């Protein structure tokens, strides 16, 4: 059957067709839809993991049972899951074990643009890179076979434009895989030094076999063309290159680690000039240049190999960037206009707004975290000072206090979302209590993992499939970590929010505020839009400090106005207005 699928949907479909049994993953753009789509197949056990490390470990456990297992994550998720990945690289895979990493060149929704192909090289496991949705499906299937054939985890590496582009895909049917069962094998499965030393020998042997396999691997494909220009490329870069250099010869690599050295050398020798076209880092280029192969007496290295001397390392590659890099982009006949930027903003009625308004008003230092609420750093809320990584808010606040003393703690607050707190905030909080810190953490409990498109989490009482699950309540959890001073507040109540923050920062020990109010996009309990009574409005602009997309200022009338299409009637602005000018009249 032909379907129009995104890369993520196609990976899910491919894994399903391959008979995958167990899937565990934490959401993260641009990977999220892989898990969401796998959750729709009733033949698969699929779950939302608390974080990427947990997801990878659950999948590893399933592989021990001889089941086919998959975990997926965004690029930085693999930093969290790196520890078990490296051990599993030694242990191998009894049941096919696939790790999907969706990298984000251009940082559309991420904090960095790391190239996770290096993880494959460092962990010494194979890396597969599909170049469109059809290949996503085929390589997801193939990854399980490779994993079992070579007794290794397989890294299936996607990028934003693979994950979130759609293409026509020919689908197949599911081939059931019955878990082969658990067999005790301590020499294989326990990574004590004595075992691991032997495992490392096997890992090196495995790499050699994989490199040999890559020489005849059908997806490492030579597409003959004009011999003047040979292009070595992989993934989405292949598609861009085909548009800009349609007549060139191509070596399109799919198994990008380990590389097929002989095939590459032969290709290099068959063309007059070689371009290596890849996005971000020099992963292929440096390995190719390091080959230095001699084929029929001629050293490939002597040939000009052009890559990152022309193509930028920074930022997303696209056909325009590629054409510009080689001086092939014509200047646009249209002159650009000066425009105000349109960055994303917290939604109208977002419960985080009240907390950030209060933090800004109190002029506190705010260590932030990863989620929609990172937008609290935007003007006019301006209520964030640092963002490092998932869970990094609580610990950064603690470090500030340890460096500058308890006075700093009185001016500092950590903010962290509910899902992020479950992900990796708990350990930081335990550290804070254990090491006698003074500090305040606000858990922005909006009852959902919002940023990635509303996934359930351990606090919501629902599974990936929407079935009932035990609720991990935040308050007893926080108290059991040893936090004595815990306050529960409604962040839409500005007075209560401000009072709670003041109380917390003046408390001598560790304080936690749980600001509980559901994401406005899940409950959708919209009330009628408010209106500004122009007779009452004095144009003081206090309401504009909320940064609500529904509120703007009429410069002619010198009055605030509310857009009835955007306003959802949360009334936070009304509670702030000194003249009670906002109402339902």
């Amino acid at each position, binding site marked *: 059957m032909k379907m129009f699928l995104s890369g993520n949907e196609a990976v899910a479909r491919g894994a399903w067709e391959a008979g995958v049994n167990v899937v565990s993953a934490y959401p993260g753009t641009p990977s999220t839809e892989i898990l969401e789509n796998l959750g729709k197949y009733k033949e698969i056990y699929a779950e939302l993991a608390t974080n990427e490390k947990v997801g990878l470990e659950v999948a590893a456990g399933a592989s021990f049972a001889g089941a086919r297992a998959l975990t997926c994550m965004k690029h930085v998720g693999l930093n969290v899951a790196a520890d078990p990945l490296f051990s599993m690289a030694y242990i191998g895979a009894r049941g096919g074990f696939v790790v999907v990493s969706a990298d984000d060149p251009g940082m559309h929704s991420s904090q960095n643009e790391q190239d996770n192909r290096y993880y494959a090289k460092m962990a010494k496991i194979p890396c597969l890179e599909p170049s469109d949705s059809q290949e996503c499906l085929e390589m997801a299937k193939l990854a399980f076979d490779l994993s079992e054939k070579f007794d290794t985890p397989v890294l299936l590496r996607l990028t934003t434009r693979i994950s979130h582009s*759609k293409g026509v895909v020919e689908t197949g049917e599911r081939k059931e895989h019955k878990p082969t069962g658990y067999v005790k094998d301590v020499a294989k499965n326990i990574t004590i030094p004595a075992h691991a030393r032997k495992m490392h020998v096997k890992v090196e042997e495995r790499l050699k076999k994989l490199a040999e396999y890559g020489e005849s691997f059908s997806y490492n494909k030579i597409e003959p063309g004009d011999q003047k220009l040979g292009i070595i490329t992989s993934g989405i870069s292949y598609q861009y290159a085909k548009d800009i250099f349609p007549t060139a010869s191509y070596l399109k690599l799919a198994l990008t680690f380990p590389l097929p050295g002989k095939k590459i050398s032969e290709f290099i020798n068959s063309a007059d000039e070689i371009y290596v076209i890849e996005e971000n880092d020099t992963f292929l280029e440096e390995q190719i240049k390091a080959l230095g192969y001699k084929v029929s007496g001629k050293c490939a290295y002597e040939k000009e190999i052009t890559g990152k001397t022309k193509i930028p390392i920074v930022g997303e590659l696209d056909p325009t960037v590629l054409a510009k890099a080689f001086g092939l982009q014509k200047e646009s006949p249209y002159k650009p206009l000066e425009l105000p930027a349109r960055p994303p903003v917290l939604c109208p009625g977002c419960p985080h707004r009240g907390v950030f308004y209060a933090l800004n008003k109190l002029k506190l230092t705010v260590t932030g975290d990863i989620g929609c609420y990172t937008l609290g750093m935007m003007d006019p809320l301006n209520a964030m000072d640092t963002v490092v990584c998932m869970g990094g808010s609580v610990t950064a606040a603690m470090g500030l206090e340890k460096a500058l003393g308890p006075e700093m703690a009185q001016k500092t607050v950590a903010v962290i979302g509910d899902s992020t707190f479950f992900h990796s905030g708990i350990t930081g909080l335990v550290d804070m209590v254990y090491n006698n810190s003074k500090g305040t953490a606000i858990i922005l409990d909006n009852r959902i993992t919002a940023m990635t498109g509303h996934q359930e989490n351990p606090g919501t009482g629902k599974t990936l499939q929407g079935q009932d699950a035990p609720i991990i309540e935040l308050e007893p959890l926080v108290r059991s970590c040893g936090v004595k001073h815990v306050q529960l507040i409604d962040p839409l109540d500005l007075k209560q929010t401000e009072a709670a923050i003041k109380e917390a920062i003046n408390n001598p020990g560790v304080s936690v505020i749980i600001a509980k109010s559901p994401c406005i996009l899940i409950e959708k309990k919209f009330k009628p839009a408010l209106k500004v009574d122009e007779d009452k409005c004095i144009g003081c602009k206090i309401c504009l400090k909320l940064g609500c997309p529904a509120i703007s200022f009429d410069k002619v009338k010198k009055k605030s106005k509310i857009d009835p299409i955007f306003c959802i009637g949360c009334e936070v602005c009304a509670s702030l207005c000194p003249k009670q000018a906002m109402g339902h009249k």
Partner: protein
Amino acid sequence: MKTVNILICGVGGQGVLLAGDIIAETAIASGFDAKKSEVHGMAQRGGSVVSHVRFGQKVNSPLIRQGEADVILSFEEMETARYLQFLKAGGCLIINRQQVIPMSVATGQAEYPVDVVERIKQQVKDILLCPGMELAEKSGSAKAVNTVLLGALARKLELAPGKWQEVISRRVPAKTVELNKKAFESGYSQQ
């Protein structure tokens, strides 16, 4: 046939992504290869949103190269200007008559370029200004703006109107099929 490139732009929440899906699926239903690309995540929170749709005999890159868009279908006046460099020489603009105020303008730090459509007109000849909201409301719901705009686009492309209607009927809520048909026709009759 040369690959047809359509860039759709607007603001998160306006229905840009669904419109892109419908264009690509209509092209596929008409026997073409098609690709489509967009970005999810943070951009959806009221930010500037863009979707690339390409169809033809065989499509490579899912992204349109600057200077190669045959049509820019813009859901918001100012956003048109942000992506103007994508339009090919002699390409066509369809602009929805709507302004969505960004935060920097709402807080008074920046000005909305009120004459933006006039300034675009000085540079581009082939422009269709479409009163999307007005036509959508006449068809029965303000939410059908994207279907109105698809109607306006359909007139510029060589895909059979019946295929468009078939895909739209499949992709919109069952109760709104008739309303969306009307909205499509009202857009199609714009010139």
